[in-house]
């Protein structure tokens, strides 16, 4: 595609967007609604004007997205050196932002009777996304080395269970419980990292083993039950203890109730990971390893050490996520975090970090977290049925990744 492609894309995008906004805030011709209702009636999707309306909006939205794609594809074939705009568009961060903006546009079109514009929607959506974001930060470090960590969800559960045991059942001080849980998570990550780096077990297999093992350990520590404020006595009856203060503190809100504590925890984790990755020698080593491991080794990088540290950091961040999860649930659930590793990988990839390693960053992961988080929240406030939610999530993940696709390099 070339300049004519660019033109077609721009027109599709602008027309789609205009129609979407006009339909949303102005209205849709009754004739069109009737036609859509009649057509959708065959599929049993709509039967009157009111139920046809979302499909019209969705159609304009899809047109906008397709337009954006055509523009992005066309830009890939233009000479990036000559045009600053094109160069800007080619940057992964702009691509990630475009995906985020498209998701936010979905929220504007489907605002669920204005719920999308309420502060609490954004606060709660970010709270929900924070645990995934924390996991994704650790996942970014590992993916940049060209590896993967499938164990983060299980390590989350292990840390959640251990933290609940220490805080609720044994009433330990958080100053003891938190560092111990973090150490536990880091140790799990360190073990899978050692397996991957020193024993040359493929990261997929090493962390798969840790994923299964840590889940089993979580179930052992918890005795197969949720570790909650209902504590079983020796005779099988239950007594109830108070929710520990540290749980309430982590699940509290700051800034006049406008920001969840866990969101702050996530931002701190992201900032620390960003400093390590972008400003510290170790971070540069991770990029070097992901780019070309042999070359990194030859230029004096202690590859094994850097890799083990990356997995340990991922385990540590998973433990942070586990502590946040336990505090929000007021219990340690050994089944918590099932499938979270896949969400974390999706966030990293949607942000634009390359799964092959060597390219990407925490900033991208931050945007990816917002994209996935907002998508979930928008589907949730609109009470979209589960079946369609899953299909839409799948489509949108593919769409977001497609915006990330780079030109022939």
């Amino acid at each position, binding site marked *: 595609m070339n300049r004519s492609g660019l033109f077609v894309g721009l027109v599709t995008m602008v027309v789609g967007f205009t129609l979407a906004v006009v339909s949303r805030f102005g209205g849709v011709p009754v004739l069109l609604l009737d036609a859509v209702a009649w057509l959708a009636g065959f599929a049993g999707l709509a039967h009157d004007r009111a139920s046809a309306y979302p499909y019209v909006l969705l159609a304009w939205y899809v047109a906008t997205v397709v337009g954006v794609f055509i523009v992005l594809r066309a830009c890939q074939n233009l000479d990036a050196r000559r045009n600053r705009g094109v160069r800007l568009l080619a940057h992964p961060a702009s691509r990630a932002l475009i995906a985020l903006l498209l998701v936010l546009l979905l929220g504007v079109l489907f605002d*669920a*009777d204005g*719920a999308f514009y*309420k502060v*609490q*929607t954004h606060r*709660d959506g970010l709270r*929900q996304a924070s645990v995934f974001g924390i996991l994704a930060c650790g996942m970014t470090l590992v993916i940049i080395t060209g590896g993967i960590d499938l164990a983060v969800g299980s390590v989350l559960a292990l840390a959640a269970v251990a933290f609940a045991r220490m805080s609720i059942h044994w009433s330990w001080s958080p100053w003891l419980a938190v560092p111990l849980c973090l150490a536990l998570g880091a140790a799990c990550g360190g073990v899978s990292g050692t397996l991957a780096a020193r024993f040359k077990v493929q990261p997929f297999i090493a962390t798969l083993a840790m994923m299964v093992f840590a889940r089993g350990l979580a179930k052992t520590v918890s005795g*197969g*039950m*949720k570790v*909650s*404020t*209902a504590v*079983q006595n020796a005779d*099988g*009856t*239950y007594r*109830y203890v108070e929710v520990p203060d540290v749980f309430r503190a982590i*699940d509290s*809100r700051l800034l006049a109730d406008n920001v969840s504590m866990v969101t702050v925890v996530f931002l701190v984790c992201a900032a620390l990971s960003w400093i390590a990755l972008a400003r510290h020698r170790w971070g540069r080593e991770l990029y070097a390893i992901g780019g070309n491991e042999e070359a990194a080794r030859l230029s004096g990088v202690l590859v094994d050490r850097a890799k083990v540290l990356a997995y340990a950091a991922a385990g540590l961040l998973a433990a942070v996520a586990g502590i946040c*999860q336990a505090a*929000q*649930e*007021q219990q340690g*659930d050994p*089944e*918590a975090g099932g499938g979270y590793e896949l969400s974390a990988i999706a966030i990293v990839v949607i942000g634009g970090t390359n799964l092959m390693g060597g390219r990407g960053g925490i900033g991208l992961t931050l945007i990816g977290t917002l994209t996935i988080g907002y998508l*979930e*929240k928008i589907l*949730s*406030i609109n*009470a979209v*049925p*589960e079946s369609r939610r899953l299909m839409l999530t799948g489509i949108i993940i593919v769409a977001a990744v497609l915006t990330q696709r780079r030109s022939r390099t």
Partner: protein
Amino acid sequence: MHAFRPLSLSVLGAVLVVLPSGCYKPGDAPTPGSRGERAASASSDAGPGETAGRTCTIGMSQCNLNEPWRVQMDADIRAAAEKHPNLKVIFKDAQNDTLKQRAHVEEYVGAKVDLILISPKEAAPLTEPVAKAVDAGIPVIVLDRAVQGDKYTCFIGADNVKIGKAAGRWIARQLGGRGKVVELKGLMTSTPGQDRHAGFRDAIGGTAIEVIFEADMKWLEPNARKEMESALARFDKIDAVYAHNDPGAHGAYLAAQAAGREKEMLFVGIDALPQEGVAYVKRGILSASFEYPTGGAEAIDAALKILAGEEVPKKIVLGSRVFTQENVGRGGEALE
């Protein structure tokens, strides 16, 4: 297997003379301190009317142990079986894998256990393995979810539609027949989810109770909290939350509490496990929880009868209880 060991063989012979139809007589006092083979050898020289028991092995296949309710079912079975020293129960966990569960049944048939308990993951794929076990002369008690056809010995389960109806009626009564309700559904692809939904909708039909927001929370507390936050953002007035399980109701409560709106509405859950629903009601978090009994104790009762050669009903429907703020101290109230 063990039937070929001389001791067991002689024991079996003795038992067969004493009790031609089975191996255990309910009502007999269990011999204290003697378990397993020791109990069996002791009884081999006992005359008629004495404790005539050889060890009966029961194989239990649980479809998964990820849900607290199923952990509780196994615990109930274990507790009931421990009262009978000559019952030995083997527990297996199919980890939500139908084929694994099918293998369990086949393994139990191969090991010639005396009775199989199964809490199936799904009906259709397990119907045939269960039928084959029955054909091989091993009685099978099916728990919670039925298999198809009638090739099983006994089905024990509760009625989710009835429980959903009771929850609907209770909410309607509390709200005076008028109000806005959020329904947090389990998995709508699962039978309990469908039944708890259908019963509830049936009960509120014809009243002015309106379901203003519904979402699948997949039985999980974090999901319930997320969905409830969305409902709270959208609606300024919510009178009640009906969640298909207690963790769901608890998640909804946490969301409402964070929004400072937990006093505005009722929270109703299902399952009433001692450490979950009942605990939440006791602590004033949930307004009510409806018990979904595990049937563990009833399964052991039925197993003993079957092993003694007595007739048991083909289908045993378990009663349910409701726990509310008023009656939780008295241990709840049976539903009619």
